[in-house]
């Protein structure tokens, strides 16, 4: 197995691996943040206090 490092330059392999793993980790973390169940920072899709969708009753129509 160690002959692999005689074929491929360890510097290039480690750099490529670091970039690949970091990209994968970032992707997975953002996918989890986009879900309701695994978002650890709150529930952005659950309707917070900042935006109210409640509609007040309309004033009586004038004739």
């Amino acid at each position, binding site marked *: *197995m*160690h*002959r*692999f*490092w*005689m*074929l*491929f*330059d*360890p510097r290039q392999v480690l750099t490529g691996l670091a970039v690949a793993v970091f990209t994968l980790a970032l992707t997975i973390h953002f996918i989890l943040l986009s879900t309701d*169940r*695994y978002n650890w920072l709150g529930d952005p899709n659950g309707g917070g206090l900042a935006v109210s969708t409640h509609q007040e009753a309309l004033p009586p129509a004038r004739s």
Partner: protein
Amino acid sequence: MSSLSESEAKEFHSAYVMGFAGFVGIAIVAHYLLYAWKPWF
């Protein structure tokens, strides 16, 4: 082709395997904690 000799390749390989084992160990702990928090199946 890299310029490593066989002994250098062996030396790097042992360090690489240790690092990989550490990475896998941390990943197993992370998955265990996440599954304990909210199981996905």
